[in-house]
């Protein structure tokens, strides 16, 4: 009977533990956000406060305090405001970050800040590029367009890193261009895409493993909770590689993966970056959402150059160059012409 009592006690203890577990299990969402305008602003502010990877850097560079942003924009809210009005206030709040990777996606609109390119000259005339340089008799290798200019310079255009390029495309292109004296790689207007495409293309311009930068991520909710930076290397391709001078043409629209590609190419031998400063966008984006159901994108993992310097606001070219509109009217792209002159001097 004593034994039975101990069993009964054990069963009771077991049930008590399960009851406690059940109580503990009743955990709800990350926080109790509400769907009011204030609730959504609180949720967005907290999301950026905890997850955004450039807060300390941007507070210093742009001169704001994220803690003050909350009260500044809360003052613009009222409980009766429409969804459109709320969207505008939240977009204004996020535009303080001046980050092209920060967006609010709604059925109303895409909230964005594109000042990194809209506030600067475009330095690109796609029609001119197409008509005067690529012409009609050019090659297309997946996302790459290429031809040989009359002065035996290879001219390659890569408009978006979302356009996949395979090793076969690259090998065929480099084989076709192998007798050229140099290469103009024109990525003006390339707003980014897949990092793997950027890495695959970079691998064709080095014969050795090259340190190109560092990458880290947030490990906690604090503004400065970051992992140890992970060194990023570009390994040489085992297939055909380019051994001659390269001019990489860039402009302010080179963003995100294109910005990372420029970072990589800056470390490659025989490569000159020419044009305007790139647009930046060195934070790898993540997605999240608000109680109202709108999708949020933000920078989560910062990339640095090989000297651990920030490249969020872009990369300076080795040789500045801009599009001369007067020459453009005569059918000449002054940046391509600058690149040709530079290559002919090697």
């Amino acid at each position, binding site marked *: 009977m004593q034994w*039975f009592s101990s*069993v*009964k006690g*054990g*069963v009771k203890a*077991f049930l008590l*533990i*399960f009851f406690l*577990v*059940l109580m*503990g*299990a009743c*955990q*709800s*969402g*990350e*926080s109790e*956000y509400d*769907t009011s305008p204030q609730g959504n602003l609180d*949720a967005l502010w907290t*999301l950026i406060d905890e*997850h955004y*990877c450039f807060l300390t850097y941007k507070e210093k560079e742009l001169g704001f305090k994220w803690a003050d942003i909350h009260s500044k924009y809360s003052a613009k809210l009222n409980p009766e405001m429409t969804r459109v009005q709320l969207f505008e206030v939240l977009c204004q709040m996020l535009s303080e970050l001046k980050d092209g990777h920060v967006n609010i996606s709604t059925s109303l609109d895409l909230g964005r800040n594109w000042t990194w390119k809209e506030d600067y000259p475009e330095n690109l005339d796609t029609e001119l590029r197409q008509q005067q340089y690529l012409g009609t008799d050019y090659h297309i290798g997946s996302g790459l367009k290429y031809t040989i200019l009359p002065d035996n310079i290879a001219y390659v255009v890569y408009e978006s890193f979302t356009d996949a390029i395979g090793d076969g495309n690259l090998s065929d292109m480099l084989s076709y261009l192998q007798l050229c004296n140099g290469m103009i790689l024109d990525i003006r207007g390339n707003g980014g895409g897949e*990092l793997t495409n950027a890495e695959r293309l970079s691998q064709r311009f080095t014969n050795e493993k090259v340190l190109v930068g560092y*990458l880290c*991520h*947030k*490990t*906690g*909710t604090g503004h400065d*909770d970051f*992992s140890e930076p*992970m060194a990023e290397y570009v390994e040489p391709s085992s297939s055909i590689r380019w051994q001659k001078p390269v001019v990489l043409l860039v402009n302010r629209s080179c963003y995100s993966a294109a910005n990372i590609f420029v970072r990589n190419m800056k470390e490659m031998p025989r490569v000159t970056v020419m044009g305007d400063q790139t647009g930046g966008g060195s934070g*790898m*984006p*993540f*997605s*999240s*959402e608000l*109680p*109202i*159901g*709108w*999708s949020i*994108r933000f920078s*989560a*993992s910062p990339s640095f150059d090989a000297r651990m310097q920030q490249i969020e606001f872009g990369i300076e070219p080795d040789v500045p160059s801009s599009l001369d509109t007067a020459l453009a009217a005569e059918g000449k792209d002054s940046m391509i012409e600058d690149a040709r002159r530079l290559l002919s001097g090697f």
Partner: protein
Amino acid sequence: MKRVLFLILALLLLSAASHAEDMVLEPVPDRSPAARALLFGIGRTNQLDTYLSPMEYTGLQASFMLQSERMTRLAKHHISFQSTLHGAFSSTDNPAGTANCLGGRLAYDAAWHYHWSPLPKLDVKGGASVGADLGFLYNNRNSNNPAQGRLSADISLSAGAGYSFRLWRLPLRADYQADMPLVGLMFSPEFGESYYEISQQGVGHDIICAYPGNALSLRQLLTLDFCLRRITLRIGYLCDIRQSNARSLKYHDISHSFMFGFVRHFQLMKRTH
């Protein structure tokens, strides 16, 4: 060649049939009857994974459970071995109804229970299990972090009780079992770790120790068996609570399911002359 094989096969079958006339089937000594249950479930689930979203997603979950149990010769036939394969598929929406998550889980547990009967018709059991869990949660709207993988292996405490009784002359059996992981390993990325970094550094970098302090989970199954003609049917309620709070990331998957299926009892037999 085919004809030769057919001939050999026919001879073997004839030989077996001629011997079978002289044989009888008897239960294998020391092998107790085994019960195997196949259950299907439908219920609601509540999911949170802050790697994907700070919002809780709720929706339907369909599941199955294949469970077999038999007594072993250990501890004078007091220890049973139980094998459980549990799979679930869910489709959940965020509170605003603007995004959807698809989830899948497959878990296997092998448990050993010590049985005793403190009261007639009451069977109490307690023991431990080892198991592995594999799953995913896919958010159809996220761009660079669209999915989260789940991988864990653990040792759990397992306990339960069964009671046989009659209601309106109908023989019934009610069973309850609870399993709670005690210690194990689980995959968990760091707070803002990207897929690119995970792929570069390897998944091993993100395997951490799991214990009730960071992964408090519990599975409870309450079932009722009854016979309908010569078939044993089982209905039940499954409450499955999976949680973790590690590396500043919170996760939970709390499901409540109505289970239904059937039970088959087996006895291992041998031929004797």
